[in-house]
């Protein structure tokens, strides 16, 4: 899934509401807002909060190392080579079972063991298909970690920027890493405010809601998606 620039303009200037009122009204409104401008010094400078918060150097190092490794995998080799290596990489770096549980949201508690098993399989394949279709988008980018915020112990948000390659401007990317037995694992990634796993959860939960709480409907949809992806590869 691309959580890329789509949202930037969703929030940006958009076709206005058509013809506006005359200039007089506009000026009146601007004047009415003027007192608020005087209040602006009272607003806190927000960067200060980020600076004073706790960082975690090991989490930052983890993201820097693994992102560099990922971009290296994507640099050379045939498509099948890249896909094979990248799947191994994802299993090492991402906490797939935790993500699998998270994207089901409230339904994680009610799903049957059989469905849970089925979902884990189709979701893994679905997620792979989504990112594999985009592996060719990377050409010589690098990632620079710039800091981190400890949300709570073992739950850290690492801030970074993707630079170079096709990017005219550095693209800020944030990573959510959780401590697991063997070290850090990535569970979510954010671009332009949009977190991938959270979006996935809201997508999936809505699909299940609309099916009257039947997780099987989601599983069937993902299966269909996987079959289409497999067919398009042939």
């Amino acid at each position: 899934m691309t959580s890329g620039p789509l949202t930037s303009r969703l929030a940006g200037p958009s076709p206005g509401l058509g013809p506006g009122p005359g200039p007089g009204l506009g000026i009146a409104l601007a004047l009415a807002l003027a007192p608020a401008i005087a209040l602006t010094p009272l607003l806190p400078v927000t960067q200060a909060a980020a600076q004073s918060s706790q960082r975690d150097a090991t989490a930052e190092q983890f993201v820097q190392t693994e992102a560099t490794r990922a971009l290296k995998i994507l640099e050379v080799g045939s498509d099948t080579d890249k896909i094979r290596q990248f799947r191994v990489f994802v299993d090492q770096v991402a906490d797939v079972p935790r993500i699998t549980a998270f994207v089901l949201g409230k339904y994680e508690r009610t799903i049957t063991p059989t469905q849970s098993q089925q979902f884990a399989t189709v979701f893994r394949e679905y997620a792979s298909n989504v990112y594999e279709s985009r592996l060719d988008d990377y050409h010589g980018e690098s990632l620079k970690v710039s800091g981190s915020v400890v949300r709570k112990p073992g739950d850290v948000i690492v801030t970074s920027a993707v630079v170079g390659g096709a990017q005219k401007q550095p693209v800020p990317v944030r990573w959510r890493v959780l401590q697991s037995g063997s070290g850090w694992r990535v569970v979510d990634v954010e671009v332009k405010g949009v977190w991938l796993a959270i979006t996935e959860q809201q997508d999936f939960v809505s699909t299940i809601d609309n099916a009257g709480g039947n997780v099987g409907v989601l599983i069937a949809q993902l299966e269909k998606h996987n079959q289409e992806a497999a067919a398009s590869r042939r």
Partner: protein
Amino acid sequence: MRNPLICKTLVLGLAFSTVASVAAAAGPAVSNGYPGPGADAATGATAPVYDPFEKANRGLYHFNKGLDRAIVRPLAMTYERGLPKPVRAGVRNGLNNLGEPNTLMNDVLQGRAKAGGVTAVRFVVNSTVGVLGLFDVAGRAMNLPIHYSDFGQTLGRYGVKAGPYVYIPVLGPSNFRDGFGRVVDSFTGILNIHDLGATTTDRLAVSVVDGLDTRAEYDPQLKELNRVATDPYATVRSFYTQNRNASFTDNHKGVQDLPDFDAPAAGGKTATPTSTPPSPPSQPN
């Protein structure tokens, strides 16, 4: 565009930037008491987007999709293919430049002195050296990339809640706060505040070109979204809401607002798909 009016605009821009730098000097770096959105203390699962009109919204979403398929996308693609890339880039820069005064006003209202300064410089430089905004000189040569601020964002920064999510015909995803913000933005846009001699038709044309250009630019992303999402309506809603919240929530607070990743009483980690190496799809081909 007539000369005195451009002067007026520039003066206004400079006045705002002065206010912004005063704000920067006077504003102490207070770290808390920030009037962000109330924390939706979500644990385990993400708090759902408040969408009491979901049924109607879905209807409008499908209406827009039909409209997009029949009219908007074909027009947008024709626009994209019909114009050479540099021309389209110039048009985009020009549209962006027209939006800068409103961004500046909202930067100032939000107390974002640095952002306001950037916007003011961008507007002045691009309107002059950049030939009425056709070239993004500030972005390219001065490393001052564009950002967008609007009144919905300003309200959000002061703690105004989003209210119900709404899907607006033609315009797309929004909510009560941002919809109201759009109305205000339409009053405070440069074509309204300044008598640039813009007629209703001109304003409409600007909006249409802006819409088509945006639609064309994000065509690959929209295609991907529709291909990948199991419920595109819910995915757009999630995108929009997260992106808007992030646009006025400071990093640190945004991090605290995230849902806990692990469900409190999850039924154990029974699913272990990673223990078996991922194999090529065994689906019937």
